[in-house]
């Protein structure tokens, strides 16, 4: 099983809902707390597991704005795990989720250096590395209602631009989306084989124009029809 996310760049409006949902779930969750330095002061800087970046593609007037939420890609070849000296970072063989044991991390930052996606942030208070857990403490917790056993970001996304599922299952929604929408990985050339996949913006729908019959130049061109109220 390879669990991960599909993010639809065609519909993400960049609302940051996923980012704050993630923050609030996980600060009390297994990876938590997610601390914030100078939360009310100058240059506040906290640990977040999900960041939304906005790009403009192409030049005016043909440009397009794209919002790109990014979190851990749960790579098949997760160098962040390979480089970890303490074993705090590990990839679950059962489902591919990459996790960090908070009581084993020594805060050397090496895993964040090994990650090309900026998915790991050091907690300014705890001194340990924080990252997306795919809400492992939601998806397997049988005390939660079954339809809530998904990552907090996926549950909250107002444009449903985030889909969670098993990329190993060819019939899963994520696999179908990747096939149908030509899903893309980021930085494929680095060879990390990220699981999370991005769906590029779609082609514009083509709408026909009404074919004019005859143009009316004056009011006189209109003829009353008998239409009852």
């Amino acid at each position, binding site marked *: 099983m390879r669990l991960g996310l599909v993010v639809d760049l065609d519909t993400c409006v960049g609302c940051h809902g996923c980012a704050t949902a993630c923050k609030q779930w996980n600060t009390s969750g297994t990876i938590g707390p997610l601390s914030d330095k100078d939360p009310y002061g100058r240059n506040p800087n906290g640990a*977040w597991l999900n960041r939304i970046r906005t790009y403009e593609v*192409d030049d005016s007037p043909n440009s397009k704005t794209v919002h790109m939420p*990014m979190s851990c890609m749960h790579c098949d070849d997760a160098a962040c795990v*390979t*480089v970890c000296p303490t074993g705090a970072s590990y990839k679950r063989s059962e489902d591919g989720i990459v996790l960090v044991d908070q009581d084993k991390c020594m805060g050397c930052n090496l895993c964040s250096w090994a990650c090309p*996606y900026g998915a790991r942030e050091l907690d300014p208070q705890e*001194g340990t590395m924080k990252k997306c857990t795919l809400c492992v403490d939601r998806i397997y917790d049988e005390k939660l209602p079954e339809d809530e056993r998904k990552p907090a970001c996926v549950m909250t996304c107002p444009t449903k631009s985030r889909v969670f599922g098993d990329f190993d299952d060819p019939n899963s929604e994520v696999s179908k989306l990747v096939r149908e929408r030509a899903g893309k990985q980021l930085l494929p050339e*680095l060879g990390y084989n990220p699981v999370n996949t*991005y769906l590029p913006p779609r082609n514009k729908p083509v709408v026909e124009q009404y074919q004019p019959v005859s143009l009316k130049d004056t009011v006189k061109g209109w003829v009353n029809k008998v239409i009852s109220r």
Partner: protein
Amino acid sequence: MHPAFSVLVFTVMSGAGYGLITLMVLGHMSGFAPQESGVLIGGGVLALVMITVGLLSSTLHLANPKNAWRSFSRFKTSWLSREAVFAVLFYPFTLIYLLGVWLQGADVGTFVALCGVVSSVLAMVTLFCTSMIYASLKTIRQWNSSLTPVNYIALGLMSGSLLLAAVQAIVAGELAGVQLQMAMGLLVLGAVVKVVYLFWIGKPAGSTINTATGFTQASVRLLDQGHTSNGFLNNEFGYTVEANKLVRLRLLMLALAFVVPFLLLLAASSALTVIAALLVIAGLLVERWLFFAEARHVVRLFHGDQRT
């Protein structure tokens, strides 16, 4: 990459220490170099001090040092873990070797000699592991090259050779020609290796903002990184050096670490050799600072850099 001072000190000091012990033991065993036990003890202690200071310094950059002991756990995969394991393994062999020299003088027995050889091998292996921590990162193209271990080992041996010459000068009161020639040779080698490295990282290559975002058909500009104040990723990876400053620092580094020490060694003076050794250490601190500052992590692409 943000140049963390503790890491600069660690890599330079321990590199020089490992270089020193390696060259010293090999010299001792092969009989090419002078065989005074005072120099061996002095050099050995200096190397241990530098390595130990370096290792202690390296723990300063740990945000959660109470778990540092766990860094031995993942020897199987992690170069950092391997570095830690070898760094620790190095100590008993080196201590036995030095104790042997202290007790038996320069003419040591087989066991002590064996420990010496093992110690010098472990020194190089540790240094290699250190370099592989950086060289193994595909995220930083300036590091992800065999030039990185070559640099680390060449520069470690180079600085070690100057230290060895300096120790010889201080303890024995006179220079040894072999050591001097070796130091000068390693200075030339180190300079060549470094210049090759600098040329190599200057070549445009690697990932771009287009491959990072997946939009490869048109220009891509960052509009918003998602937070207005800098975060961990900006602080860690967003380090930028002004182009002018970069040129000046590179010249300073080449002068301090290679050119001036070489010229000083030409004078074959004990005092100038000590100064040359100190300059090399200073020069390598600049070199290491640049090694970090010029390394451009791919995360920067997501923050708006066009290429790495």
